[in-house]
């Protein structure tokens, strides 16, 4: 059950900056520590840029979620791009198909509490993360 939910477009480079600001202000609203805010915002930055660069643009949906007394933020990055044929490979440290550092997926997985990828070649990619307070 989501307590709050918003969806943002990611079509241009500036949108990455904007969704990062959203992640930061939501994390501040839930009173995440400075380190946790920084980790969460950085993961947001990586995944939003993948949505833009590899997925050809898409959306980020942000939700405040609850688990018992715990609150957290769930972000869903969704695109209708080429998809990922080999998810295991894409999650490997240093793997890149496009001259990046290849640490966006694997690194952001380490920066959050829950991480899930769904992708179908030709259909698109959805990455869902949660960071609990």
């Amino acid at each position, binding site marked *: 059950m989501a307590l709050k939910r918003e969806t943002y477009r990611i079509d241009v480079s500036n949108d990455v900056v904007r969704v990062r600001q959203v992640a930061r202000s939501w994390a501040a609203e839930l009173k995440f520590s400075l380190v946790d805010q920084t980790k969460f*915002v950085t993961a947001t930055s990586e995944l939003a840029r993948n949505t833009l660069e590899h997925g050809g643009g898409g959306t980020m949906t942000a939700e405040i979620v609850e688990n018992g007394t715990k609150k957290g933020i769930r972000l869903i990055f969704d695109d209708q791009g080429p998809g990922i044929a080999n998810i295991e490979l894409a999650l490997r440290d240093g793997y890149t198909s496009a001259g990046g550092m290849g640490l966006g997926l694997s*690194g952001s997985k380490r*920066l959050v509490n829950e991480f899930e990828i769904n992708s179908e070649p030709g259909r698109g990619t959805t990455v869902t993360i949660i960071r609990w307070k």
Partner: protein
Amino acid sequence: MSAFQQVIKANETAILSGWLSEMATSTRRTDLMGDTEIRQQATELLRLFTEASQTSSDVQSAAFASTKEFLKDVAKSRMDQGFTPAETALFVLSMKQPVFNALRDAMKSNPSELVTEIWAAGNLLDKLSMLTVTNAIGFRELTIQRQQEEMLELSTPVVKLWDGILALPLIGTLDSARTQVVMESLLTAIVDTNSQVAIIDITGVPTVDTLVAQHLIKTITAARLMGADCYLSGIRPAIAQTIVHLGIDLTDIQTKAKLSDAFALALQRSGKTVVSTKGSAPKPKEL
């Protein structure tokens, strides 16, 4: 038969001069706009309005297209000149008084027709002024958006700290095309000033992700190839932890917590020391 459209057409000159003097007393901003310009705008708007209202009393109709187009230009130029959206709307609203005066004079003998026509003319002018406000706010939003984008961009100068020592204090987000430009300007400055050390300070960078790290690493590697040492300073604790979790390896890069530490190292490496010319530091006074 004397609907407000005919009254306006018959009294264009009187309405214009009444309107101008109305604006002169209540809404003019002489600091922002000259007489000639305001007269031109008023004349043109009255002409378009009179013409359009002859065929329609619906502002959404094609008859009002050029009136609306003109008001859009007015809104834009007034926003550029520094008027508020309310002041811009007043330009249109202040036409009411002279129009109503003309109607009153023409329909003295028929009060109920006068009320109907005042209502009709007033309604039309209200709608046009609302449209002007909407346009004005739209232009303001565009301006704000543009300014925000500009603020997101970097404007970072390369500064010379000492002979042979440069610093690049980065401020803002680091993922736009400008980043490339800034990094290149550092490399150019290294060559131009024949510097041996360059310090990149990221104290003012809110997020360091893999793209930013890649830019930094590339620049530092290029600086090395050109024979200069490049240090990275201003890595805040939260960012240091995040970099480690991301898996970015900065062990090959000389990092310092603060710009001053990096500067001290740079001085030391280039064989310079800082000495106090006042001898020993003054002793604290005894009570």
